[in-house]
């Protein structure tokens, strides 16, 4: 096969970004005249293979090894590397998940082949793919290509492709064996856990008032608290506000925080980095206030104000309280 899609397990189902990867691979296959295959592994390998076989993919490969039954970066990197060596694809497609961040760079190093990450689009230029990648925290885009011979590792950003676009079909499942032994696994993992939510449920909020680093300092946080109260909304934030200890982590929206879809999301002093945006772009109405007219948040905002949040927030609270 020419394109190998690596599918991630999400409790027995294909991770949403895996479905998006299928759509991405299908587009590349169409544009460049290439064939596809998908790879599944882990404790839920059978269920994932079954699900994957329902898509328009050349074939589905299933790795059976006790060393990939649960995730370890060493085990997964070695397994994927060996499958790539056996199958010799030119492109290996991943979703840009946290798990992929953890082990795919190791595959790149083992093969000494580049890992082109976090792409939002791909197009063909004279039969060679050119990838569009976010840089500078989403403020700029860049066009990137790989040099030399494949295999090339490629990851796509969340929602770069719509999972609805993944074409269905029927694919055969083939078992694949890899040669891994215990000495290769240098890590030991405990069970995943969630931290106390602290009584903040942003997911059911109708209105969210979210602050970013633009709020300036901890002493300004109450201004936003007052606004949230005046408008009957919940207070949320971007990551730097939590990192600085200005709000507890339960308030964080984004890829490592909560995903929200309120009727109105008021983004105050938030630049709109992709890791924040993935957690709030489902909001019905996004209102952004930012002093930088070029902040990426304005690319997704329904309403925008170029201005100083420290000036606008107190006046807005006052007007709402009248």
């Amino acid at each position, binding site marked *: 096969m020419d394109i190998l899609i690596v599918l991630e397990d999400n409790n027995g189902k294909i991770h949403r970004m895996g479905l998006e990867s299928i759509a991405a691979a299908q587009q590349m296959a169409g544009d460049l005249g290439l064939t596809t295959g998908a790879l599944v592994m882990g404790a839920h390998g059978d269920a994932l293979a079954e699900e994957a076989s329902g898509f328009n993919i050349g074939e589905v490969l299933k790795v059976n090894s006790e060393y990939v039954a649960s995730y370890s*970066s*060493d085990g997964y*990197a070695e397994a994927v590397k060996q499958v790539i060596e056996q199958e010799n694809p030119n492109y290996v497609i991943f979703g840009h*998940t*946290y798990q992929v*961040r*953890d082990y795919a*760079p*190791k595959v*790149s*190093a*083992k093969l*000494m*082949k*580049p*890992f*082109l*990450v976090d792409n939002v689009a791909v197009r063909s230029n004279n039969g060679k793919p050119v990838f569009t*990648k*976010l*840089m*500078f*925290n989403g*403020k*700029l885009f*860049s*066009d*990137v290509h790989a*040099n*030399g011979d494949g295999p090339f590792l490629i990851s796509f950003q969340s929602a770069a492709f719509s999972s609805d676009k993944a074409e269905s079909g029927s694919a055969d499942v083939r078992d694949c064996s890899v040669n891994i032994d215990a000495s290769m696994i*240098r*890590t*030991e*993992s*405990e069970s995943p*856990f*969630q*931290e106390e939510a602290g009584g903040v449920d942003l997911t059911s909020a109708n209105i969210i008032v979210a602050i970013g680093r633009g709020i300036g300092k901890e002493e300004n946080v109450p201004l936003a608290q007052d606004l949230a109260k005046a*408008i009957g909304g919940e207070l949320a934030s971007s*990551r*730097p506000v939590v*990192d600085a200890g200005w709000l507890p*982590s339960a308030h964080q929206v984004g*890829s490592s*925080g*909560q995903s929200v879809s309120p*009727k*109105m999301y008021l983004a105050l002093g938030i630049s709109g980095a992709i890791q924040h945006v993935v957690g709030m772009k489902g909001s*019905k109405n996004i209102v952004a206030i930012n002093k930088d007219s070029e902040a990426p948040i*304005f*690319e997704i905002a*329904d*309403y925008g*104000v*170029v201005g*100083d949040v420290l000036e*606008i927030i107190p*006046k*807005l609270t006052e*007007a709402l309280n009248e």
Partner: protein
Amino acid sequence: MKIAVLVKQVPGAESPLPIQPDQSWVDEGAVAYMMNESDNYALEEALKIREVNGEGEVVAVSLGPDRIQKVIREALAKGADRAIHIQMETAGAIDPLSTAGLFADALREENFDLIFTGLQSDDLGMGQTGIIIGEILGMSTASLAMATEVGDGKIKVKRELEAGWFQWVSLSLPASVSIQSGLNTPRYPSLKGIMGAKKKEIKVVTPSSPDPTQSLEKVYVPQSDKQTVMIEGSADQIVGKLVETFRNNIKVL
């Protein structure tokens, strides 16, 4: 415990990013540089481990042109013991495999117990340099560290998973760990630290640049097809229009 910390100089969050006429890169002359955010946390974590252990060495390592000596000095002022500067022109260079190879070459002989990097650079956002270095040097690796515990020839790392989940992973040493922002409170350099930094060693190495495995064609400002209604005027007018929008358009009041 001998710890290398990679600190990268990147455009600050508020820096202007004008693009060069040929679109090959940003106009570096107009950029306000800072230490990469997650690297600052990585440095703090390394300094804390040295302090808790009461012994050991923290070595700041950076790759780039002469301007990066500023972040190297900053790391030394905060408490790193010495530094390595891998001198290299980096404008428009975007190949983590090559960069990581140069770091691995510079660090191999030093036999570090730990290499800490930031999770990702705020300019290129590759999120892989530290892990590749670890793999090349035969170290165990972990990404997205939100806490560390060192002891018994191991490092335990609390890894961030998606959507607010975490997992403790224990790694054999030597290990290369990439650090996520927010796991500690980075210190500011003291006046004494700043003075002392001037006397600390910065070893400069000048390798030749390898052939890149990936290349940048151009950088540009993203275009969106979303129609954003811009609300303008004086602060009072803006507030009036916002309240109207909340009431009549979004219907939340």
